[in-house]
């Protein structure tokens, strides 16, 4: 799909056309709805951070097509390991996005139970660590015999997200090596948004990153990550191959971080204005809107999505302001699963210390 929304047919996309043939206009509308709602959520969360409601916000603006396409391409039984910017993926897997805000507000270091969010695992803040967790879980799928039966709706696979900066971490390389050694049912989904905070991808790698993956022995492909259909198709093909016993696959989705790395950052100090303008002109939501207009989708649909997005943002704002701080005993809870004398002693000390003030008052 070009920026004008028209579908491009050539020999490069031939093998992917089949993978999206079961999608219809209803699906495209749904892609558009989610991309739009989550972008509005993202803007609202950034505002809430600026108003002191969160320690930090991590925007995903500009990367919605890469995320929505790939997340929809996963199947219900799959495990998803995000980095920390995959808000669209979280939404699609059924996470209440207020849980992301709870974490970044500082009331929890996790936020949700992956077993209750359709296997959408926790955000991991240390870069690339989750690539190894994903690979280990995929090894377990293999040991359980839960893949390669030929039943695409039953065979499990793992989809792990990471960024261009993460490819410089040793853990990412080790994950590719283990995945290759154990032929895990797994897809590495690299969102190359071109910037690791202030360091451009050209400093991280002189080679296109998908070629680096090929060097590890993984079938790899580079796609236009701002094309939601391409993201869907490439992920669908790779995940179904991985779940069918063809080993790990690698996708590099070229996209762009329109916003800052986080709210603690000022991209105007290191990024060229023209580069930003170029990518703004290739906005993934505009592109899908162009496609929907070609299909003849009525204007009232876009209006209704805009209203839904506003409502969602207002709801998030209200929920954020209602979040209560955790009780102080939470410091000692869940450090261990089993009883631990140090936790017991310190919790008891803090309790009596607090009470000593009440008695004196």
């Amino acid at each position, binding site marked *: 799909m070009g920026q004008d929304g028209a579908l491009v047919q050539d020999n490069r996309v031939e093998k992917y056309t089949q993978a999206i043939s079961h999608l219809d206009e209803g699906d495209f509308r749904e892609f558009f709805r989610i991309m739009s709602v989550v972008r509005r959520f993202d803007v609202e969360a950034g505002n809430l951070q600026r108003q002191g409601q969160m320690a930090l916000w991590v925007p995903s603006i500009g990367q919605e097509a890469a995320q929505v396409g790939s997340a929809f391409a996963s199947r219900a039984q799959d495990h998803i390991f995000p980095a920390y910017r995959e808000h669209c993926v979280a939404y699609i897997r059924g996470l209440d996005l207020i849980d992301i805000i709870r974490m970044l507000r500082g009331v929890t270091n996790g936020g949700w139970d992956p077993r209750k969010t359709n296997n959408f695992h926790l955000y991991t803040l240390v870069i690339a660590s989750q690539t190894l967790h994903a*690979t280990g879980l995929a090894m377990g799928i293999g040991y359980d015999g839960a893949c390669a039966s030929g039943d695409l709706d039953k065979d499990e696979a793992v989809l792990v997200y990471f960024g261009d900066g993460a490819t410089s971490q040793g853990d990412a390389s080790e994950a590719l090596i283990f995945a290759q050694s154990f032929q895990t049912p797994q897809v590495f989904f690299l969102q190359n948004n071109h910037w690791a905070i202030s360091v451009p991808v050209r400093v991280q790698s002189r080679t296109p990153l998908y070629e680096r993956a090929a060097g590890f022995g993984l079938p790899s492909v580079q796609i236009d990550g701002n094309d939601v259909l391409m993201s869907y198709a490439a992920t669908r093909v790779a995940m179904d191959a991985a779940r069918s016993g063809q080993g790990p696959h690698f996708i590099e989705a070229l996209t762009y971080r329109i916003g800052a790395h986080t709210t603690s950052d000022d991209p105007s100090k290191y990024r060229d204005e023209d580069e930003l303008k170029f990518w703004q002109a290739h906005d993934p939501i505009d592109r899908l809107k162009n496609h929907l207009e070609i299909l003849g989708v009525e204007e009232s649909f876009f209006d209704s999505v805009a209203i839904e997005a506003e409502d969602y943002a207002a709801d998030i704002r209200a929920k954020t302001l209602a979040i209560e701080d955790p009780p102080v005993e939470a410091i000692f809870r*869940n450090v261990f699963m089993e009883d631990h004398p140090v936790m017991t002693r310190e919790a008891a000390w803090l309790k009596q210390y607090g009470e000593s003030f009440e008695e004196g008052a």
Partner: protein
Amino acid sequence: MNELPMAKAINEGLKSAMTADDKVMMMGQDIAQLGGVFRVTEGLRELFGPNRVVDTPLAESGIVGTAIGLAMRGYRPVCEIQFDGFLYPAFDQIVTQLAKQTARHEGTQGFPVVIRIPYGGHIGAVEHHQESPEAYFAHTAGLRVVSPATPHDAYWLIQDAIASSDPVIYLEPKSRYWHKGPVDLEASGAPMHKARIAREGTDVTLVGHGAMVTVLHQAAEIAAAEGVSAEIIDLRSLSPLDYDTIVASVNKTKRLVVAQEAPENASVGSEIAATLTERAFYVMEAPVLRVSGFNTPFPPARLENQYLPDADRVLEAVDRSLAY
């Protein structure tokens, strides 16, 4: 009662744990086909198959990182780090990920991963093969740290570690691997975090763990010949520490010497000294004295006998304690 060397006792413990629970699996470098460089996992691959005894690529962070993912899948991975000095590539995955996963998941799932690390000196090996890294892990919340001194405890502690729902660092005193001792295969006799009175005495308490317990026995023998009755406490668990047993002993002996191979600065021995000062200040006749490795890198092996505390260095501290 069977007589087994410690390496074989651990092997038997692993076998027992793998037999009891088919989610228990081994992973590490050279552990399957070769049986590990110390042969601790020898024969397990033949018994349990290549999916439960896994030779991994040579990447420590990868071993622990994938073990975390396997634990998420319901497995109970036991990772072997080949030597103490090779564990640091995995340090981030242990400290930043493994230790904090239960808290991050708010207790909705446990991470029953065991990291086995052969540690300590006395084997005359090259650099990175004789270190004592226990303080790093004792300092890290979310980890439990144990170290056996005897084949009997090695057999039972490895099974306790595997059965725990929490991550456990299991430190194997590699210089004791080939020494035989009695193993009661029927009963452990002590919970995982309980210290053991290894020798009863009345004049001074000696505390140590791992291979140091052997040195303490040598020191106690010599002291006895000189009319000094030393009580020995084998810690078994380094985190949490069993202070009740140490305090009870010091209430009796009034004197405490803590010995360890590790460098002294910010060590487990230092922590015991500080805590005993808080809990037993008025009963002690002398300050707690520490006998440790020096605050240097582990020296070239030809100097290890001067670096590692021996019975004479323990006795020098005992003499100083008795002189107060």
